[in-house]
């Protein structure tokens, strides 16, 4: 039987990044993926004959440093692809177009305010920037490196200068709505700009404490929050990561569903020694690295009997309920949106912040939103291979769709939600219904089941202040190590978490390599 230095559970992008780094440093690495292909939520799959889509449909801040380290360009991924604009759709065809620091479609006051807003937000975001590819220090630790890291945070804040530091400490906890109201007039602009602070979260514009931080977090990425779809789409990123990993000597096995992590016990305590697959096969390794979400990892794969009760409770109480559904449409031709020449960009349908708030209000009681808000992308514009010639794929993140629908998710409930979503798109693209040749609607419950992600939550666990940084997923497991020696985390449930970033996989590899 083969013996490995490391087994990585899950071939999502973080798992692949971690695997590639370890293999490049001479480790023998096996990646076990339960699905038939790599990529996790970034994996491209056929939803209608000839049409393909992935849950993640754009890349906003995949690390250039990681791309360079792993030479992803030579495997077909270019993170420096031109950013795509974010377009807030207006019913009257008057849209707001945000292209980096350029703003079109808003009044002159808003344009001026947007300049100031970008400047200060970028300054604030820079405070968070150094955290991306760093293991967070441990609070209460007397370790010099940890203390120095905290000192560094303080220093960074101080360097902002008196006024900006004070403002940062105020703004960081603001609800998205207050930040927008303080700066702007145009309702579509406010809704569109707040979108990135809310997407994927159980938060609405009026929710304090985490949204602006999430926004700053995304702005602190190398692309300054701009979204891009590389040539070849998300798929290009996944296949380049797979290519890089395999070139480094990583062995990838598909349809290899890990049933549990093997743990040995001795007088010295526990250690992870390998995994057992659903078919009973056992594979041993010096360490096991899980890119699965924390609940799956600890409760299902490790088993609570190996964990302390308080720790288990902290994992159990992680807030992991997804609120984003996914709509995929197979279209016979390019859809036309009123007032848009080419639907090239991230199209946001959220007429104002109340619309977002009220959609959330339905979902928080377990009801499906009467007027969902959404982000639409046409991946086929960037990767023609996802649809037959001349035909197109529309991909939409639909908010807020509850994981736990009152009465449960039946086919009828799903269909109703799907039709309601299409109806709303049709208000902006009136001919869309005639163009649809196939469709798929995935609720968070579907995503949970199909992608093995607790709660169907993209970020594995809610991106809220108490589950971020050195608290992600929880203390005792926030530095990629876990209470079980030999077991590490490298998924979105770890810092920096969420989105197609690769930070968690990179940081975990650094910790493992020492």
């Amino acid at each position, binding site marked *: 039987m083969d013996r490995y230095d490391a087994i990585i559970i899950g071939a999502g992008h973080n798992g692949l990044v971690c695997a590639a780094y370890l293999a490049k440093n001479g480790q023998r690495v096996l990646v076990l993926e339960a699905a038939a292909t790599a990529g996790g939520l970034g994996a491209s799959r056929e939803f209608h004959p000839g049409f393909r889509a992935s849950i993640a449909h754009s890349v906003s801040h995949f690390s250039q440093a990681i791309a360079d380290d792993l030479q992803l360009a030579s495997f077909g991924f270019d993170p420096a692809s031109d950013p795509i604009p974010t377009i807030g759709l207006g019913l009257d065809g008057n849209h707001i177009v945000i292209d980096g620091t350029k703003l079109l479609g808003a009044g002159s006051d808003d344009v001026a305010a947007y300049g100031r807003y970008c400047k200060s937000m970028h300054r604030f975001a820079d405070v968070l920037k150094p955290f991306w590819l760093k293991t967070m220090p441990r609070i209460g630790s007397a370790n010099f490196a940890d203390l120095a890291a905290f000192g560094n945070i303080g220093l960074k804040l101080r360097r902002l200068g008196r006024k900006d530091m004070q403002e940062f400490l105020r703004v960081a906890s603001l609800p998205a709505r207050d930040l927008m109201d303080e700066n702007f007039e145009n309702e579509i602009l406010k809704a569109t700009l707040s979108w990135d602070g809310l997407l994927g979260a159980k938060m609405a514009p009026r929710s304090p404490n985490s949204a602006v931080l999430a926004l700053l977090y995304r702005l602190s990425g190398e692309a300054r929050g701009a979204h891009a779809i590389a040539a070849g789409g998300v798929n290009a990123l996944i296949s380049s990561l797979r290519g890089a990993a395999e070139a480094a000597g990583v062995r990838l096995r598909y349809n290899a569903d890990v049933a549990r992590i093997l743990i040995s*016990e001795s*007088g010295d*305590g*526990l250690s992870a020694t390998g995994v057992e697959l659903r078919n009973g096969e056992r594979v041993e390794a010096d360490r096991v690295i899980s890119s699965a979400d924390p609940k799956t990892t600890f*409760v299902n794969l490790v*088993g*609570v*009997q*190996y*964990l*302390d*009760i*308080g*720790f*288990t*409770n902290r994992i*159990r109480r992680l807030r992991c309920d997804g609120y984003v559904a996914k709509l995929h449409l197979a279209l016979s031709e390019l859809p036309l949106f009123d007032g848009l020449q080419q639907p090239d960009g991230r199209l946001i349908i959220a007429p104002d912040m109340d619309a977002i708030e009220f959609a959330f209000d339905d979902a928080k009681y377990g009801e499906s939103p009467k007027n969902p808000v959404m982000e639409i992308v046409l991946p086929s514009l960037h990767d023609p291979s996802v649809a037959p010639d001349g035909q197109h794929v529309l991909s939409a993140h639909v908010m807020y769709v509850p994981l736990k629908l009152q009465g449960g998710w039946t086919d009828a409930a799903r269909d109703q939600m799907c039709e309601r979503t299409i109806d709303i798109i049709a208000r902006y693209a009136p001919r869309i219904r005639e163009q649809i040749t196939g469709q798929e609607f995935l609720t968070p419950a579907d995503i949970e089941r199909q992608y093995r992600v607790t709660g169907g939550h993209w970020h594995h666990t809610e991106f809220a202040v108490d589950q971020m940084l050195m608290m992600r997923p929880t203390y*005792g497991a926030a530095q990629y190590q876990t*209470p079980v020696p030999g077991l590490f985390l490298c998924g979105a449930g770890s810092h920096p978490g969420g989105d197609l970033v690769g930070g968690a996989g990179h940081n975990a590899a650094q910790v493992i390599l020492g």
Partner: protein
Amino acid sequence: MNSADPYAGERLKLSPFHPRQRELNIRDAWSAWNGYKFADYYYDAEYEYFCVRNTCGTYDICPMQKYEIRGNDAEAMLNRMVTRDVKKIKVNRVAYCVWCTDEGRMIDDGTIFRLANDRFMLTCGSPCNAWLEKSAFGFDEVQVADITDRLAALSLQGPTSFAVLQAMGLAGTESAKPFDILTLPFHDDTLMVSRTGFTGDLGYELWIKPDLALRLWDELYAAGGDYGIQPYGEAATNMARLEAAFIMPAMEFNEALRTVNFEHDQTPFELNLGWLVDFKKPHFSGRRALLEEKRRGPKYTLTKLDIEGNKPADGSYIYSNRRCTQEVGYVTSAMWSPAVKANIALAMIETKYLQGELWVEIYYEKELRQYSRVVKCTQKQKPFWTPARARATPPPNY
């Protein structure tokens, strides 16, 4: 809720034994335990204490919390919760256990009864529902039920306790060893008898359906009439348990989940209960912290003290010298022991000072005047009261 009694919601619950105990509590000396009306003493605390040491007495343990834990994962679940190896508890045996937070701080102590391979009863002094629920999370096949109100229990303690059970005609008690459980027929139902107790002497605990509680009481008192049976309350219990050097919550330890200031809770090692922590068994909650605590040595150690003179040292500070310049600990419980004729105490003392002299400054009152004196303490290794009969099987039939 609109019952005849507008205060029904606020009144204490009555134990199934209450009708008899009310008659015997001629001083109306009641306090409360876990929401039950509970006797502080019935006639005279010292008299009741001497019954426990000289004849026998009954102590109502209905308010004690009882949980049934069953299912294929029951053993694994308990084993991960408590520090002792539950696997080693055989069917029909009882084990004294403690359980801790992740940080190794003691949440509570109690006893685990193994009733079958997949069925246990856990008893403890304070409610434990929330912790049990947390402990059971993640185990597929385990059910936890609070059976406190479904099981009446009476502790029968003292040298003649065995004789009383014999007089009642309970066959099999003669072969029951300490920590054994017997299940005996009783009026078309069952009576569970465990050779357990909280007095350090020969004794049993009797477990029965609430419906049969008074019947059990009546038969016990009929049989015990010639053996000096007498109900005893909280006050006598506290005396007996101190002589046996058993710890008491809110005296020797502060339950970790109810401790506001972390320096105020304890580890099993500090409470001299290191023998209950088994590092060879499967993983348990707090293991890592306790291993570290064992390696480092506990900051405090619960110590048994024999103190000069006869003034009880309740609430006193312990010093390392007669001049009281170095404070090294504090007394948790103290009394004059009528049985061993000694001034005894349990004290938490900083471990590093245990090798040296120990002095205690005792404040006492004489006819409303306050006095203090500094006297020497001697450490005791064994409990103050350890009669051989407590361990003998069969026990002496007085």
